[in-house]
């Protein structure tokens, strides 16, 4: 069981992620109404939000240091923030501003942050080999840092998954593979894509531990991740963790979600893990209602400041598009 302090910290992470993304969601539709035009508004392009999946980011990243490497996917904000990415630089990048992580060149699917050794990729499963490489470097450099690779259940049917797990297992690298099973890959449900019910069972194909966290519960995730991270740090090799989590929103903003039943959507809303976790912390006395409210306020302030920073930052010079092709 995590300490009360850790529980409060996970709660804090989850809610700042949620608030950040809710705010981005609102802003995303600025300039896109009444006629939705993906290219319009302050935040154009695709937007993949992670509402519902905060427990995974918070539970896993609670064990990490900034020098640990994290690779994420097209849905990266929750992990990026939980691993400590500067929210201002993140917001500015999403706004395509000069002050963003990549001076506006990357955008929301291509966030790279040397300060937290964070990277992500818009190509399904292709962030996984990078994580293997980080861990390989750490081993060669004699560092006890580790690499964590987040990916969706849809990614687990891609060849890169297989190659990455085999390599990490073969070379006994310090990688924790975290599968966020939110049951959907855009409109394709997991059982129409994956031959077996649980990806954690695939760990056996590489001789590594496979752990199923059947609930979207930060505490259970924290526990599973704790073991895997510790094993990785002490040179015990990789692990695979699968979390059954929830995608509360559409695949991307603007997704009409015609493939999901109303019942499913209602159920998801009801069992929102963030609300449930907060209730539990209050019920068990880990958090007072006042503390909870203060946490929300504090997060609100942080998000507002980040958005304000992003909005007021200058756009990059158009001609700077030609820079940074080569170092």
């Amino acid at each position, binding site marked *: 069981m995590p300490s009360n302090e850790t529980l409060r910290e996970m709660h804090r992470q989850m809610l700042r992620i949620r608030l950040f993304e809710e705010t981005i969601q609102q802003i995303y539709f600025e300039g896109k109404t009444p006629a939705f035009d993906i290219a319009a508004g302050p935040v154009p392009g695709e937007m993949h939000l992670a509402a519902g999946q905060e427990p995974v980011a918070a539970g896993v990243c609670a064990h990490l240091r900034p020098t640990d490497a994290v690779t994420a996917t097209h849905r990266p904000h929750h992990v990026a923030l939980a691993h400590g990415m500067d929210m201002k630089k993140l917001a500015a990048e999403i706004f395509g501003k000069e002050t963003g992580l990549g001076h*506006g060149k990357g*955008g929301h*699917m*291509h966030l790279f942050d040397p300060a937290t050794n964070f990277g992500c990729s818009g190509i399904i499963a*292709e962030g996984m080999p990078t994580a293997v490489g980080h861990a390989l470097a750490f081993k060669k450099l004699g560092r006890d840092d580790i690499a964590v690779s987040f990916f969706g259940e849809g990614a687990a049917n891609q*060849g890169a998954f297989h190659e990455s797990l085999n390599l990490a297992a073969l070379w006994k690298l310090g990688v924790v593979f975290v599968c966020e099973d939110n049951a959907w890959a*855009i409109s394709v449900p997991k059982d129409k894509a994956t031959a077996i019910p649980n990806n954690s069972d695939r760990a056996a194909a590489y001789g590594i531990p496979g752990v199923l966290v059947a609930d979207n519960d930060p505490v259970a995730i924290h526990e599973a991740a704790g073991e895997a991270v510790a094993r990785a740090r002490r040179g015990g090799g990789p692990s695979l963790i699968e979390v059954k989590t929830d995608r509360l929103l559409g695949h991307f903003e603007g997704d009409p979600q015609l493939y999901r039943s109303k019942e499913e959507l209602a159920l998801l809303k009801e069992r929102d893990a963030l609300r449930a976790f907060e209730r539990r912390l209050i019920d068990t006395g880990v958090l007072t209602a006042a503390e909870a409210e203060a946490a929300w306020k504090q997060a609100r302030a942080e998000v507002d400041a980040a958005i304000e920073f992003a909005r007021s930052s200058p756009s990059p010079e158009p001609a700077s*598009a030609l820079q940074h092709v080569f170092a």
Partner: protein
Amino acid sequence: MAVETKRLLTTSKAISEAIAQEMERDPRVFVMGEDVGVYGGIFGATEGLLAKFGPERVMDTPISETGFIGAAVGAAISGMRPIVELMFVDFFGVCMDQIYNHMAKIHYESGGHVKVPVVVTTAIGGGYSDGAQHSQTLYGMFAHLPGMKIVVPSSPYDAKGLMISAIRDDNPVLYMFHKGIMGLGWMTPNPRATAPVPEEPYTVPIGKADVKREGRDLTIVTVSLMVHRALDAADDLAKDGIEAEVLDLRSLVPLDREAIVESVKKTHRLLVVDEDYRSFGTSGEVITTVIEGAFDHLDAPPARVTYPDVPIPYSRPLEQFCLPSREKIAAAARQLMG
């Protein structure tokens, strides 16, 4: 004689109609890909097909492009005629071996004995801030690699006719549709993405370019969404008395070199407009085609307006700086006129 009501369709509906008609005609045709079923394809190319043909003929796949594109190759060899979608062309790197070492080469390696009639559909193009991994065109890269036909339509009419040709072709065809020509409700409106399309099936030949606007002063050679930009620029140029001919290649493989050369022999000037990366690609090949076929007819060195040799940036001002535009095309044309 009855007044003919011209039926208007978006490009995406023209494509899905072409597929539906061919599926009705030929039971061997089926569709595979990510989100081609209920979703109807992220860019609408397979809209309505699941409802019409059921999940056996319109198959959602796992995210396993090597697996299912390779499966299309095998199914084609064993007598089917698969249409398989690679959601964005930018994802080619996860499955290029199947596309290029298998789909494109088996017919040749077999000495002509094995046919591989696969149509790969894929979305190309940027301009809406989708970043470096979701905005490329890349047709020049595919056109460099022999063994596949490459189709790049610009209009609803061509899109339907080329799709029917692609499905009926006994060769692998890469069918590349630009997101900006699809007429999608959620993309920047494009009036040229909705146009008259006959209801009955018809073909547009693969390998034949099309003069989308006649002109006498210079030839603008281009494809896909850039045809629209070139037509806009031609309108502007016309106000200054410059009459640009706009040649829409429609296919890159086979390349209609004759049409390019003939047009330049008439206009004596060539401007290539290319949304793909500038170097080692389409623009150089079109210019070289003219050098080889009409060198002595040129009144000025051929010029090109292209995407520069940089990955696609996310931020709008950066991306727009890179993309060929109506203004850049018109300016280059004026410069070419001297």
